[in-house]
């Protein structure tokens, strides 16, 4: 769907994981993240890179689990009507 978005997400996540190529469906939580600030770095990256706001309701781990899941989440958020 969004090759650019996916590439951006994969490149960002590649900083955190010692694998050469993160596959679309690699579960990043199972790979184990290395930094205690990882979660808010990731939230901050997604908000900054794609200009959206992550709310409490978005905090499903499934939205953040893999490159593919993040890409789908970003696409969904970007196409959702803006809340007043």
């Amino acid at each position, binding site marked *: 769907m969004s090759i650019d978005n996916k590439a951006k997400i994969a490149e960002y996540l590649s900083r955190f994981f010692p694998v050469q190529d993160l596959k679309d469906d690699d579960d990043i939580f199972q790979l184990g993240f290395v930094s205690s600030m990882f979660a808010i770095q990731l939230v*901050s990256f997604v908000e900054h890179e794609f200009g959206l706001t992550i709310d409490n309701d978005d905090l499903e781990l499934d939205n953040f689990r893999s490159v593919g899941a993040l890409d789908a989440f970003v696409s969904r958020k970007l196409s959702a009507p803006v809340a007043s």
Partner: protein
Amino acid sequence: MTSTLTAEQAQAQKEFRAFADRHVVPHADAYHRTQRTPPEIVALLASEGLLGLPVATRYGGGGADAVTLGLLAGELGRACSSLRSLLTVHTMVAHAVARWGSRELKETWLPRLAAGESIGALAVSEPGAGSDAAGVTTRLTRDGDSWLIDGHKTWTTYGETADVFLVLGRSPEGPTAVLVERDTAGLSTELIEDLIGIRASMTADVRLDGCRVPAGHVLARPGLGLSHVVGTALDLGRYTVGWGCVGIVDACLEASVDYAGNRETFGTPIKDHQLVRQMISNMYTDARAARLMCLEAGRLRDEGDPGALAQTSTAKYFASTAASRAAASAVQIHGANGCSSGFPVQRYLGDSRVMEIIEGSSQIHQIGLAEYAFQERALVRHRKAAATPRSEGR
């Protein structure tokens, strides 16, 4: 040094400086001696809108950017690290509510916090858990539409006077952050006296004995209390502590330059001795470097740049170690007077020790900073690998 500021930020800084010089500097040593923050100065900070500075205007706050908040923390830190700590913990709580609170929590708490009607405190540390915050043992148990909380928090800055606590506990889902009001049955506090620094900070032990709070008081979600809620609060806390340390270095430099110009030994002001000048020049360099790092952290924060986290940690680590160096030198330059309560440098020395422990000790920041260095390098490696065609048969 102020050339990166907008006209509004420069004006705000002037006003913060005037406020600190008029209302705080003359009294800070007395606060330190008596180990108390008078409620009047808190009320004044509140009525000037300073406690709600970063809160969004729609909740009655000042809607200030991060750089402006930093400038306030810097000026308060120059005057009194205890009051700067009040700003730190209070804005940490407001920030966590703004970021991860439900709409209802935001509408209830942000106007109160913005107005300073309610003072917020952060209750994460326990007797057995500090740096390793995931080790907290405070228990959150679900009971119908509420949570029951049992635990013992300690080192809670302004815990003795705060109206609302952001408490990190453990629920079946994992680390969980919840707001607890002071008048909740089962909550009690006890002042911790005779600290080495921020002696006026009303730091307290907080006991939670079967405290019942509505389920809606949880921030973000159960399980995300540390990674998201406390992580977000700590990030802001590090930023304002870093700025507070810029203030400590400035205060050390001002006091040392004045003293060295007046005190004479061997027939000349001590400012003429090269070894004294060396201490001053190191302080001068540290003051500028720490300020620039904090300004850069502020700029990145205002841009929403994810690199702000690493820059904030770098700035806090550098500024707090710079404050330690500056305070030690300032006491040295003051000789015996520096060891007495007649000069504020003795206060700066104790305060600077605390700055290297709170909001992540120097060692915890060092660990994180190395991690950021590896992350940045990993990106370069990844890009190189992507650009290099793979040889066949690999």
